[in-house]
């Protein structure tokens, strides 16, 4: 919060963008500058809403919705009014059976056939037109997202980068996201940006996202995928191009640092790293440049900068990270991670090590 105030934007600190930027462990100029931008562009809250749109695609769909909403609300009022009149109205004196039958048939043909056909044909044409407008050539930054029970593996193949449960994209540019699943069917959905696309273990799908402006939104798995379907969320962070490039460079630098294997910055980190391997964390979680390479749980190479833990379950603070390590089942029952009993000192060492993975 201080950081935002310092950056001199006269905007009241509110909403999740601030909360995010104010987290002490997310340092660096990239984020301070972005936080300011987010405030101007991002709606306070409703970070997972189909109506608070931040992209052309979701905007088109919202426009289609409002058009349908108006036409069909009027139609609804019309039908209800007719029903009301029908049961309140007195019979006409001159109603003879023959004229009544003729009148009834005309009423049904105009009201029941012509009127719905007109409305529905308009909807069909608008639907097809919108579909066509939403079609995007698959050109742009490539990202691979694979759904696991219950987290997201996110890879940037052109940059040899693997993260989890959050997707950084350059704002204002299309990104091509190739979707897959490792176990059951999941569904990729960031309502502020676009509709959803399912993810299959045996059939590749794809979505092209393009955020109009920098911002941060929440996405969620939309296809029921088992016990923890509810907590299979992710964050999408759109950065201006230069900040995005900086972000990529920071990650590359962090990986290079691990590979170069300099002496650890502190004793705690060194001890934490030992604990990491002693407690067999590495049998599920990969960390770049170390013997940990089996992908059962999320890649931890950049865990230190991760926004959330447990795929959107809790914010990535030191306390929460410690909680997650000792009691993952209490926080997210059913997930694959076992409890790791550690004393306080060991825990803080492990947290220190994980936090150093940036």
């Amino acid at each position, binding site marked *: 919060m201080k950081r935002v105030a310092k950056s001199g934007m006269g905007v009241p600190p509110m909403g999740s963008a601030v909360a995010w930027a104010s987290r002490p462990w997310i340092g660096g100029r990239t984020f301070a500058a972005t936080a300011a931008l987010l405030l101007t562009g991002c709606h306070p809250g409703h970070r997972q809403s189909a109506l608070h749109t931040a992209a052309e695609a979701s905007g088109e769909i919202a426009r289609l919705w409002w058009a349908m909403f108006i036409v069909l609300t009027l139609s609804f009022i019309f039908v209800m009014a007719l029903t009301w009149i029908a049961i309140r109205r007195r019979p006409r004196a001159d109603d003879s059976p023959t004229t009544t039958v003729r009148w009834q048939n005309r009423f049904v043909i105009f009201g029941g*056939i012509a009127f719905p056909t007109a409305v529905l*044909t308009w909807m069909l044409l608008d639907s*097809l037109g919108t579909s*066509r407008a939403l079609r995007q050539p698959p050109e742009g930054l490539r990202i691979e997202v694979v759904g696991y029970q219950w987290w997201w593996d996110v890879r940037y193949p052109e940059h040899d980068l693997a993260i989890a449960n959050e997707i950084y994209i350059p704002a204002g540019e299309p990104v091509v996201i190739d979707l897959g699943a490792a176990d059951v069917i999941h569904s990729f959905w960031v309502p502020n940006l676009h509709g959803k696309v399912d993810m299959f273990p045996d059939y590749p799908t794809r979505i092209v996202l393009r955020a109009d402006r920098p911002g941060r939104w929440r996405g969620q798995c939309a296809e029921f995928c088992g016990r923890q379907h509810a907590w299979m969320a992710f964050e999408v962070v759109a950065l201006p191009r230069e900040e995005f490039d900086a972000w990529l460079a920071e990650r590359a630098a962090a990986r290079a640092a691990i590979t170069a294997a300099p002496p650890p910055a502190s004793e705690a980190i060194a001890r934490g790293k030992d604990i990491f391997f002693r407690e067999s964390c590495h049998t599920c979680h990969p960390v770049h440049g170390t013997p940990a390479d089996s992908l059962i749980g999320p890649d931890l190479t950049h865990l230190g900068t991760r926004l959330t833990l447990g795929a959107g379950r809790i914010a990535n603070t030191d306390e929460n990270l410690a909680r997650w390590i000792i009691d993952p089942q209490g926080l997210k029952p059913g997930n694959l991670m076992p409890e790791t009993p550690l004393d306080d000192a060991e825990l803080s060492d492990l947290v220190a090590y994980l936090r150093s993975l940036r």
Partner: protein
Amino acid sequence: MNPRDRLPVSRWTLRFCLLGGGIAWTLHLVGAWAIAEFGILGGFAGVNTLILVLSAAMLLAAGAATLVSAHVRRAAGPENHEDARTVAFCGRFGIVTNAVFTVIIAAQTVPVFYFLDQ
């Protein structure tokens, strides 16, 4: 005794009148879907043409069913007889049903024109 002999139109005409449009619609939807899904995923080039040909054929079939229904309606003659009334009912029913199916098939043909560039 045998009711078959008394109806002014044949049973097959009657069946076509009652169900022709529905069957044409079924063939159209299932056919168009199968061509699209199997054709596109299977990498077949002439998907749009094939669907348009199918649409034309099924529109013709449903239209024919409508005309046959009109014929059934006329063939029923003056409705002074129980059977004549029943046949006339079938005719009227067929006209509207098949006409509506024709409209639905036409509506189902529209999407093709939004995908011609694909």
